[in-house]
């Protein structure tokens, strides 16, 4: 039995209500975790000596709009000694998505969570410093959401060059 299989059965045994499902795609196993028990699951993964997931690799947020629940957070955790990767998935509703912060367990979660907050507008309860990280502090909206426009400025070609030049505000010294 591989370390990954042991981990999954240990998690399913210990958190029968916390582990909502298990999906396999292209050889990667994703466990769906209830957001209420995320912190407990993560703490168990890190602290249980037999599991030893000591590294949080990444937190990625995905917007499944218009599906509901709309947002998903993917946590990729890694056990260095056993060389095993596990992916956790937490689904969040479209209205007021809030997940518990795991920056108390892995300090490296701090910035990825801030990034998910900044870009997707997902709140993290218990985060020590939840501010915008990439966008300016006074920016409105969360750019990586599907309903946020990409932003587009008309491209100048020969036929519309003058027209655009006339309304573009060029800087002066």
């Amino acid at each position, binding site marked *: 039995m591989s370390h990954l299989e042991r981990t999954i059965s240990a998690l399913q045994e210990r958190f029968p209500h916390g582990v909502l499902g298990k999906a396999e795609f292209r050889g990667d196993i994703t466990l769906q975790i209830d957001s209420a028990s995320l912190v407990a699951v993560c703490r168990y993964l890190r602290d249980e000596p037999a599991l030893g997931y000591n590294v949080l690799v990444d937190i990625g947020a995905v917007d499944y709009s218009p599906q509901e629940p709309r947002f998903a957070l993917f946590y990729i955790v890694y056990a260095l000694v056993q060389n095993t990767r596990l992916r956790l998935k937490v689904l969040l509703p479209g209205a007021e998505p809030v997940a518990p912060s795991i920056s108390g367990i892995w300090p490296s979660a701090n910035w990825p969570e801030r990034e998910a907050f900044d870009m997707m507008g997902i709140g993290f309860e218990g985060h020590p410093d939840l501010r915008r990280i990439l*966008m*300016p502090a006074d920016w409105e909206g969360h*750019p990586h959401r599907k309903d*946020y*426009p*990409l*932003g*587009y*400025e008309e*491209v*100048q070609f020969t036929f519309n060059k003058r027209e655009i030049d006339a309304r*573009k*505000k*060029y*800087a*002066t*010294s």
Partner: protein
Amino acid sequence: MGAEQKLGNMGVVTTSLETVVNWGRAGAIWPMLFGLACCAMEMIATQAGTYDASRFGMELMRASPRQADLMIVAGRVTRKMAPVLRRLYDQMPDPKWVISMGDCASCSGVFNNYALVQGVDEVVPVDVYIAGCPPRPEALIDGFLKLHEKVRGEKLARWA
């Protein structure tokens, strides 16, 4: 200037003040040490041994805007960076010039999106645009030469 040839070795050169001032300015432009993104790597490559910008009197990169004449906007300018960029430009003493290096600085290149200023000419006035993503060091040197040409043809009254 050509005056030396006409006059021979007489130790006297007559020319206009404007020509002398512009000749001096074009010969020793100090760029600001200010890289934004990918183009900054090519800018450093231009400064380094193989391409050697000191051939054009431009090897002295100043980290402080107060000592620089030329701002090379090397890379994409984000909306977060734009106020900083403008402030740096305002701190530079006259006369000052701006080279917009690369597609991103000139028109934001492949990134037509929310995060970038669509062309740095919305923030600072640009003298020379250089195409390329990133421009080769040769292209930047061509931009330098174009700028020198422009500086040599300037009117003193512009900065007076």
